[in-house]
């Protein structure tokens, strides 16, 4: 990010930026930067809080008034948290669609594929309702069932083929995994009678309690055994987050 600021400013475009990792910005020394203490993935702090987002945005833009640089300022206000953000509350969040008992993880690949289909059928009404009411989905390239089909076909050696002939299998698998996770978040966030999960709640649930998380781990392991370097790299780094 900071390098891009150097390149653009050198070409005559003034820049200001948000910094998520202060240590990086200290080394790169872009012209103007506002360090913020928020989670990676949330540079404006928190969703659905226009006032807070505006405060962050204005703080970054006001650095354009500096007379000289480089300027590295700190935004020290933490992002507003949900009222009860305790570990206990986070542990309490659940989404009652898990047929798979994590203590009895299914090992047979066909059973994993079947469990995924069953799980998605349960989630689909909430996903559909959310999409209709919010007029938006962040599912990008693969509709939920197409994502599941591609990953299942790969796992079962059924010649998976992305619709786009220019898309490699490695890219298709990565994008299908992203879209499947997005489907799960959007559906789970619309389950009746429960607040949307926090990022931490969703991550824990997805990777420890869902058939989808289990199947993606299997896809990841299979990718690692491939001769194709891009599939190997995808399996190693781009499907399952570090630490999960």
């Amino acid at each position, binding site marked *: 990010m900071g390098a*891009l600021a150097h390149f653009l400013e050198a070409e005559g475009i003034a820049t200001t930026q948000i910094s998520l990792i202060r240590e990086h910005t200290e080394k790169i020394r872009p*012209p103007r930067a506002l360090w913020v203490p928020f989670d990676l993935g949330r540079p404006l702090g928190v969703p659905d809080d*226009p006032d807070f987002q505006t405060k962050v*945005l204005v703080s970054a833009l006001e650095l*354009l008034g500096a007379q000289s640089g480089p300027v590295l300022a700190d935004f020290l206000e933490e992002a507003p948290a949900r009222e009860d953000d305790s570990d206990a509350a986070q542990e309490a969040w659940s989404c009652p669609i898990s047929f798979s008992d994590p203590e009895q993880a299914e090992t047979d690949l066909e059973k994993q594929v079947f469990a995924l289909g069953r799980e998605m059928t349960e989630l689909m009404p909430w996903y559909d309702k959310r999409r209709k009411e919010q007029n*938006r989905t962040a599912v990008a390239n693969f509709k939920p069932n197409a994502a599941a089909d591609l990953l299942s076909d790969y796992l079962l050696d059924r010649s998976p083929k992305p619709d786009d002939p220019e898309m490699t299998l490695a890219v298709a698998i990565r994008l299908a995994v992203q879209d499947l996770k997005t489907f799960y978040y959007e559906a789970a966030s619309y389950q009746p009678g429960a607040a949307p999960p926090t990022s931490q709640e969703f991550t824990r649930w997805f990777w420890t309690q869902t058939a989808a998380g289990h199947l993606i781990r299997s896809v990841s392991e299979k990718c690692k055994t491939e001769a194709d370097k891009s599939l190997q790299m995808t399996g190693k780094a781009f499907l399952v987050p570090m630490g999960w």
Partner: protein
Amino acid sequence: MARLENLAEPMRSHIADLPCPQFDHTPWVDVPELANQRIALISTAGLHRRGDRPFGGMDGDFRVIDGTSQAEDLVMTHISTNFDRTGFQQDWNVVFPIDRLRQLADENRIGSVANFHYSFMGAADPSKMAPSAKNLAGLLKGDNVDAALLIPV
């Protein structure tokens, strides 16, 4: 929180060990008062319009985002799986604060919002972004942009 010391391993070491490019000096462009500036957003979240090419690897190219885009139009195909996406799935402004920027223009706190905005995929090697940035600077000047707000993910 994104304080390096608060990240769990192995993420903390991964981030801490990422190579950072070094520059001999920091360039500087003077700008008019904020209330008179035309602002563009440049994200490194791997954003693009639905239907545009997804980010497929570590290339340093960018995607053009029409300033009239709505939340439903924008998707994310960043290569990393190690940052939160649920914020973006809930509200695009937490990554791409275009509604907030439009609001500032309506209140005359900035001059105007650019017609076009842009996104890179931030995991790309910065040296691969350099030629793209040169092209991008030309596009920004063509849109009469005074300043760009760069937003990581």
